[in-house]
C-alpha cells in the first residue's frame, strides 16, 4: 500500500494531456471573456452577446425610473427574449415560432431577484430561460448554482446544465437545460429550487409545463460489436429545437460503456453541435449494461441523411459509422 501511494503522483502524471486542446481553450476563453469585459458585456463560452446587449440597454434605461417601476420595467425586455437571443439556434427557432411558454415569475432572496422568463418542452428538450438581478456583482457563492426539482410534487432527478451569460456585473441571463425529459408527461408542474452554492439564497418556483410541439420518432435499430462492446442505437427523436439519439451498450468493461458519445454529420459534411448527453450503467451477470442519450442541434432544413459515429472516450474501442435517412 505504501508503495502504491508513493506511485500515486507518478501514475497520475502518466494521464495523457491534450495540450493543443487545453491551449485552445485557454486562448478562446480568455479572448471571449476579455472581449466582453472591455465592452461591459462578458459572456460565457458558446454563447453570443446579442441578448446581453439588448437587455443591458433596456435595463440601464430603466434605472432613472422609481425603484418599483425600474424593477417592473427591467423584467419586460427579458420575458420571452432569452431563448431568442442566447445563441442556441434550436431555442431561437422555437422562440420565433411562438412555441415557447412565457412565465415571468420573479422571486427575491437576500435582495437578489431571479425571474423565470420562458420554458420550452417538446419531449426532446426541456429548457428554462431565466434572468438574475443581484444587488452586488456575482461573488463566489454564485460560481455554482444548486438545483433541485420536483415533477407534480414528487422529487425528480435531472442532469441540469446551467449556462449563465453576463449582461452587466449585476445582471445575468441564463438557460437551464434538463436532460432525459423523455419519460415526462405531456403536461406537468415542474418544481424548481435554485440556490447559491452556500444555500444562503434560495428561489422556489412552480412552473406549469406543457408540450409545446410535436416531435418525430425515427426508429434506427442499428447494432454493431467492437472491442468487446455490443452497441445498439435504438432511435432518433427530432423536435423543433434539436434531436435526441438513444443508444445502449453492453460490455464486461465498465469504462467502455460509461463514456460513450456520438458525432453527427449531415450529407454536406457539416457536423451538428452536441448540446448535452449522458449515460448510466448497471452491472448484471458479469457485464455492464449502459443506456444513454445525446442531444444535438436540429439538422439544417432539407437534410436527407445523417451519418453517426459512436466514440468511446479512451479511444481503445473503435466503432463504425452508420447513416440514417431522414423522412
Amino acid at each position, binding site marked *: 500500500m505504501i508503495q502504491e501511494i508513493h506511485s500515486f503522483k507518478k501514475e*497520475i502524471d502518466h494521464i495523457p*494531456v491534450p495540450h493543443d486542446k487545453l491551449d485552445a481553450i485557454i486562448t478562446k476563453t480568455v479572448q471571449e471573456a476579455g472581449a466582453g469585459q472591455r465592452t461591459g458585456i*462578458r459572456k460565457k*463560452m458558446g454563447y453570443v452577446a446579442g441578448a446581453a446587449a439588448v437587455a443591458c440597454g433596456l435595463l440601464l434605461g430603466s434605472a432613472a425610473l422609481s425603484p418599483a417601476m425600474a424593477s417592473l420595467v427591467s423584467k419586460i425586455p427579458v420575458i420571452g427574449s432569452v431563448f431568442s437571443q442566447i445563441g442556441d439556434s434550436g431555442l431561437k427557432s422555437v422562440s420565433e415560432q411562438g412555441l415557447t411558454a412565457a412565465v415571468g415569475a420573479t422571486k427575491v432572496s437576500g435582495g437578489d431577484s431571479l425571474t423565470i422568463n420562458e420554458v420550452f418542452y417538446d419531449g426532446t428538450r426541456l429548457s428554462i430561460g431565466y434572468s438574475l438581478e443581484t444587488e452586488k456583482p456575482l461573488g463566489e457563492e454564485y460560481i455554482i448554482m444548486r438545483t433541485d426539482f420536483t415533477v407534480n410534487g414528487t422529487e425528480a432527478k435531472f442532469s441540469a446544465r446551467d449556462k449563465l451569460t453576463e449582461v452587466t456585473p449585476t445582471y445575468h441571463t441564463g438557460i437551464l437545460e434538463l436532460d432525459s425529459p423523455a419519460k415526462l408527461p405531456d403536461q406537468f408542474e415542474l418544481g424548481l429550487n435554485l440556490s447559491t452554492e452556500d444555500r444562503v439564497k434560495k428561489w422556489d418556483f412552480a412552473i406549469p409545463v406543457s408540450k409545446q410541439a410535436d416531435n418525430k420518432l425515427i426508429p434506427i435499430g442499428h447494432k454493431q460489436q467492437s472491442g468487446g462492446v455490443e452497441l445498439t442505437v435504438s432511435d432518433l427523436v427530432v423536435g423543433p429545437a434539436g434531436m435526441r439519439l438513444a443508444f445502449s451498450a453492453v460490455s464486461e468493461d465498465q469504462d467502455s460503456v460509461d463514456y460513450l458519445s456520438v458525432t453527427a454529420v449531415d450529407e454536406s459534411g457539416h457536423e451538428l453541435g452536441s448540446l448535452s448527453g449522458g449515460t448510466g450503467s*448497471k*452491472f448484471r451477470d458479469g457485464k455492464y449494461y449502459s443506456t444513454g442519450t445525446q442531444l444535438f442541434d436540429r439538422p439544417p432544413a432539407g437534410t436527407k441523411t445523417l451519418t453517426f459515429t459512436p466514440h468511446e472516450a479512451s479511444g481503445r474501442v473503435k466503432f463504425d459509422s452508420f447513416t440514417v435517412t431522414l423522412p
Partner: protein
Amino acid sequence: MSTTADLVPRAMRGDPDAFQALIHEEKEKLYRMAYMYMRNEADALEVFQETVYKAFKSISSLQNSRYFSTWLTRILINTAISYLKKNRKITAMSPEVLEHIGDSYQHQPEDQLDLLQAIGTLEEKYKTVLLLRYYKDYSLKQIAEVLDCPEGTVKTNIHRGLSVLRNKLKGAACDDPRDSFL
C-alpha cells in the same frame, strides 16, 4: 521572465496575458485533476474550460495573491463535483436506472482495480483529500483552506480515504501508511 508572484497581481488587475501565463503554468495538473474526477477527456476538458472561465471572471476578487494556486484548485474541484452531481442525476428519473449506479459501484471487480481506478471510485470527499495530499502535495492546512473545513476533518477524511482505498486494493500489503503520510 515573470514569476507567479509577479503575474498574479497583474492578472488581478485585468491583464489577460498574465492570466493566461498563470493558467499555462497550472494547466497540466488542472487537467489531470479534472480527469481523475471525470474519467474521460471530453468531460475533463469541459471542467477545465469552466474552471478557466470562472477563474478569469473572478480573479479580481482573489483575497491574497499568494493563494492563487489553491484558489484555482478549489474552483476546479467545485466545478468537477458539481458536474458529477448534476450528471449523476440524469438516470434517476427512472428507478431502475437509479439502481444501476448503486449496482455498478457495489459490483465493481475490486480485485482487478489498479490504483487510479480505485481512487476514481472513491467518494468525492475522500478522492479530493487524497488528490490534494498526494498529488498536489498540499499540507493539511492548505487542504483545509481549499476545502474550507477544519484540519481535523481533513485528517479524518485522509485516514478514511486510505482505509477505503486499502480495502479496494485487495491483495496489496496491509501496512498502515497513515502516520507516514500525515
